[in-house]
């Protein structure tokens, strides 16, 4: 029996879909059987980020409406052993699936897969409720901005109300040089305000854009800092205690200056 995780956020555009794609790929690279479930009905994206958009025949709504069996709707990612995608419907709306039906689909997937990663839509309406319905745990994604953290707080409350275990936080799009200057909230600020445990930190990384263009998750790229961060997070999801990577490894200006002047930090 596998485990289901919902990747959610409150505010839109903070990186849920990117995170779902990269964590799924990373877990598959670790040898796990993974199903990615796009719960963003009407605005499906995960297929495109994964580069699988041309292979869709059936979708989640076809499954719950009984037009096909679950196995028929699952798209096998030929690049990564054990990785599958269940796409959302693009033409239906969020009410096409009920929380109960979602629970059923996720339950069935958990019998086959080690991990079911559910990509939640933004917001707190029906789509969010559906995405959470079948989840055993929740991962909250935020960016280091007031509005995103504020919405994350609301979502944490709703996850508690749904009686899931305490969610964990991924802070996405951190820019170490801005944090250093005091122009971006740092991780500790956010953890303190939200009173939540950290699952990982993903830096802002142009490779994310490039890899999304190509439909190849950055987790597969050795040179990508964000990809490395996602691979580390996947190992933490498996229960391995992986330390946070140093975001300054590449060396901001200040750090390089300090080095030149003989200080080290």
């Amino acid at each position, binding site marked *: 029996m596998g485990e289901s995780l919902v990747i959610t956020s409150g505010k839109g555009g903070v990186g849920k879909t990117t995170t779902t794609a990269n964590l799924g790929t990373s877990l598959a690279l670790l040898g796990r059987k993974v199903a990615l479930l796009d719960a963003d009905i009407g605005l499906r994206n995960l297929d495109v980020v994964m580069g699988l958009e041309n292979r869709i025949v059936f979708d989640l709504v076809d499954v719950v409406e009984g037009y096909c069996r679950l196995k028929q709707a699952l798209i096998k990612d030929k690049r990564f052993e054990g990785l599958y995608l269940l796409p959302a419907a693009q033409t239906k709306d969020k009410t096409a699936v009920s929380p109960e039906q979602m629970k059923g689909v996720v339950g069935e997937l958990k019998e086959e897969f080690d991990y079911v990663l559910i990509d939640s839509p933004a917001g707190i309406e029906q789509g969010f409720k559906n995405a959470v319905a079948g989840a055993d745990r929740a991962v909250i994604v935020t960016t280091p901005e*007031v509005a995103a*953290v*504020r919405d994350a*707080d609301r979502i944490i409350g709703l996850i508690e109300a749904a009686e899931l275990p305490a969610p964990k936080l991924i802070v996405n799009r951190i820019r170490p040089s801005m944090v250093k200057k*005091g122009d971006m*909230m*740092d991780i500790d600020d956010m953890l303190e*305000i939200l009173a939540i445990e950290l699952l990982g930190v993903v830096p802002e990384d142009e490779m994310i854009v490039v890899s999304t263009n190509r439909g190849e998750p950055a987790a597969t790229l050795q040179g990508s800092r964000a990809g490395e961060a996602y691979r580390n997070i996947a190992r933490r999801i498996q229960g391995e205690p992986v330390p946070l990577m140093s975001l300054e490894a590449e060396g901001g200006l200040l750090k390089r*200056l300090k080095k030149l*002047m003989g200080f080290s930090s």
Partner: protein
Amino acid sequence: MLDLLNKVFPKDNRSKDIAKERLRLVLVHDRASVAPQFLEHLKGDLIEVISRYMEIDDKGTEINLTSGEESVALVASIPIKRMKRHAGTW
């Protein structure tokens, strides 16, 4: 070096500190308004405690959050009907 930086950008002017402070304040309101019944519970508890010391008008009791520029305060207005007589000291 760091000292110099801190002088050029005094702590409170760093935009991250402003962000953190704004977030702290907005979440006081958000969290209170998500569970409006919490203020009612608090009011009940307050009335109970204060009634041990004085007779108050619980119907006239009001409690609210008010926000200023830099802080949020809990403001209670509790009309007192009568003070209880307390055993004085000799």
